């Protein structure tokens, strides 16, 4: 049997989303065209926009479709920076590279100053640190970006408190991992901007959305036909948008079931390897993500061995060449370089079963044994 435990990377598309996408692919019409076909496709897109707006509790005009979550993050960070004359960008130290890298780019090319807010050992944002920085630098801060939950550990961040501290400073939140997994309201959180992505929620790859507060106008990243509030020009990807909305509307994610599978897996791991450490265990976490350190191993060896046993999981971070790198998230939580490279992420989804958990647990001890041996010769 093969077991897929990498749902945080991408998760199967729901059948309704595939059906909706197929139907849309067969349909003719550019949503920007004025004739019958164009209007019909445009209607599908706007129906989809409303469904997504409803799911995330925002106005439909606040949904700006993009080609990915990364694009939405880039648009938010660069857009909110260029929106003002202020130069300070504040992010958490555990952001996804889709937030960190545009922020660093702005430092290098646009004279921005970046302040990273640390997290505690459970991976939760240090609010006191944030409070202090905001109190000292308030008038200089262009934006604050803190993710809703972390993609490596699943730890949920105190966004409500962040927005309270920020007051009128624009706050962006990367909610790619949280969307549809935990309750989420753009309006109630009081955010300026939020990022979501289609393929993490049972929709297709290649579609994301920037939720941008009404009347906040940011410079366009793509210029052209003026689609999407003139922020994101380009012919609308109707089939993917329709499928994204279909996945969100049907909402098949079963948080209770997924959390039970995750918990059962974690208990089994600790029973088999009492020295294993579950990162972020003490914090409020997403139902489906489990990040575990196996001391004395190297995660790339473990991944290869798990894969050979037909269990798919993740090492977290890799550079452009595909080389495994120490995770900045785990290191921000205080893990050493070595321990952070001894960690695996298992992420569960609605399609997983108890049998999957049992199978993964049955192969894990052998994999860890071989991983320990492989690491021991490496240090010889």
């Amino acid at each position, binding site marked *: 049997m093969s077991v897929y435990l990498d749902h945080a990377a991408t998760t199967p598309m729901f059948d309704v989303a595939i059906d909706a996408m197929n139907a849309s692919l067969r349909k003719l019409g550019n949503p920007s065209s004025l004739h019958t076909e164009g209007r019909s496709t445009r209607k599908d897109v706007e129906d989809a926009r409303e469904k997504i707006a409803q799911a995330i509790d925002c106005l439909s005009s606040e949904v700006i479709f993009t080609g990915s979550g990364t694009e939405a993050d880039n648009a938010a960070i660069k857009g909110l920076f260029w929106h003002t004359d202020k130069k300070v960008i504040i992010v958490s130290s555990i952001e996804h590279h889709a937030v960190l890298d545009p922020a660093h780019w702005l430092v290098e090319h646009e004279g921005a100053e970046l302040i990273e807010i640390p997290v505690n050992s459970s991976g939760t944002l240090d609010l006191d640190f944030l409070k202090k920085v905001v109190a000292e630098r308030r008038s200089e801060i262009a934006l604050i970006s803190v993710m809703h939950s972390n993609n490596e550990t699943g730890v949920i961040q105190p966004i409500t408190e962040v927005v309270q501290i920020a007051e009128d400073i624009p706050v962006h939140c990367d909610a790619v991992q949280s969307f549809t997994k935990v309750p989420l309201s753009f309006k109630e959180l009081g955010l300026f901007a939020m990022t979501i992505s289609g393929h993490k929620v049972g929709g297709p790859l290649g579609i994301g959305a920037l939720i941008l507060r009404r009347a906040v106008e940011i410079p366009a990243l793509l210029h052209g036909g003026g689609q999407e509030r003139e922020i994101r020009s380009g012919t609308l990807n109707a089939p993917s948008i329709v499928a994204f909305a279909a996945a969100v509307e049907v909402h098949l994610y079963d948080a209770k079931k997924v959390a039970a599978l995750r918990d059962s897996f974690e208990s089994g791991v600790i029973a088999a390897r009492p020295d294993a450490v579950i990162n972020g265990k003490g914090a409020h976490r997403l139902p489906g993500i489990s990040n575990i350190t196996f001391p004395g191993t190297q995660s*790339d060896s473990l991944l*290869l061995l798990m*894969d050979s046993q037909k269990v798919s999981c993740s090492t977290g971070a890799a550079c452009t060449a*595909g*080389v495994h790198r120490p995770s900045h998230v785990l290191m921000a939580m205080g893990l050493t370089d070595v321990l952070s490279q001894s960690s695996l992420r298992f992420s569960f989804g609605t399609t997983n079963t108890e049998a999957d958990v049992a199978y993964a647990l049955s192969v894990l001890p052998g994999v860890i044994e*071989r991983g320990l*041996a*492989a690491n021991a*010769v*490496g240090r010889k």
Partner: protein
Amino acid sequence: MRIIAAMSGGVDSAVAAARAVEAGNEVIGVHLALSSNPQKYRSGARGCCTIEDSHDARRAADVIGIPFYIWDMADEFHEGVVENFMSEYKAGRTPNPCLRCNEKIKFAAVLDRAKAMGFDGVVTGHYARTRESENGRTLHRAVDPLKDQSYVLAVLNREQINGAIFPLGDTEKVDIRKEAQARGLAVAQKPDSHDICFVPSGDNAGWLRERMGSEVGPIVDQDGNKLGEHKGAYTYTIGQRKGLGLTVPTEDGSPRFVLKIEPVTNTVVVGSREDLAVTSMRGERPIFCGPEVGAAPLRGFVQVRAHGAALDCTYYMENSQLVAELDQPLLGLATGQAMVIYDGDRVVGSATICETA
């Protein structure tokens, strides 16, 4: 067998992996990331381990239909190969980092890790052959004399040879390219890599100067008379004639050659062509791929460069050093190079040259 295929992204290792699969093995492709700061693209025929190379390796694995992973060996490579390369030059010797990489990385770090993970061996695209004999597995030259890489594999001990699989040794390179084409491997026409992978410019002296500085020192003749100045003794090689920048001509107008590099005094000694002649050499750290050599003199061949000639010699062990006495003198032999002894086409063993006479 379950084996790891070390895939560089080149044509040879791709075909080697494909042949290993066809031979009925369970093969997993691994690309070694040897640079912690890889370049995006290869520049010409030089270098490896670029992002483009890892992509090529991945595509080859896809076509062959095997799993593929990247192993980060950058730290091991830096410590075991790059640092050694610098310290050898600093000590006035001329190292061969490819041998060092085979000895310390490909058939040590990788093979050991593979075995610990439950694999039986490592397959590579080296051009060499192994044979099973009553004395165990032995290492032999490849059939293609232009591609033969037995020299750079002569640092492997018997245990390492037992864990190594070289499927290409029986085929000429030109046919490997044809085979790659027939197998649909996109790397079929990718240029061969030459020179030292971590010196992508090909300018060893410049690379060394950048990292080790260029301390000016004297160039002297054999009597100690100063003839000129150099910018770092370690950038010279024994036998080098060009680039000495000497303005004082010899009496008879004959050219001067680098005879000796003295790292402690940062001195380069030059002299006539005749003074370069070497008739015997001694090597330290001997490694035997097959039966060990004893004190009794034996007849065979010695090779001192990767694609150098096999020179007739008599060889034996003395004071735990490997000695080779040449039938004909050889011009310009640097310490630090590897001497590899052959018995016909069989690799007997190797040692690092520490003394010449």
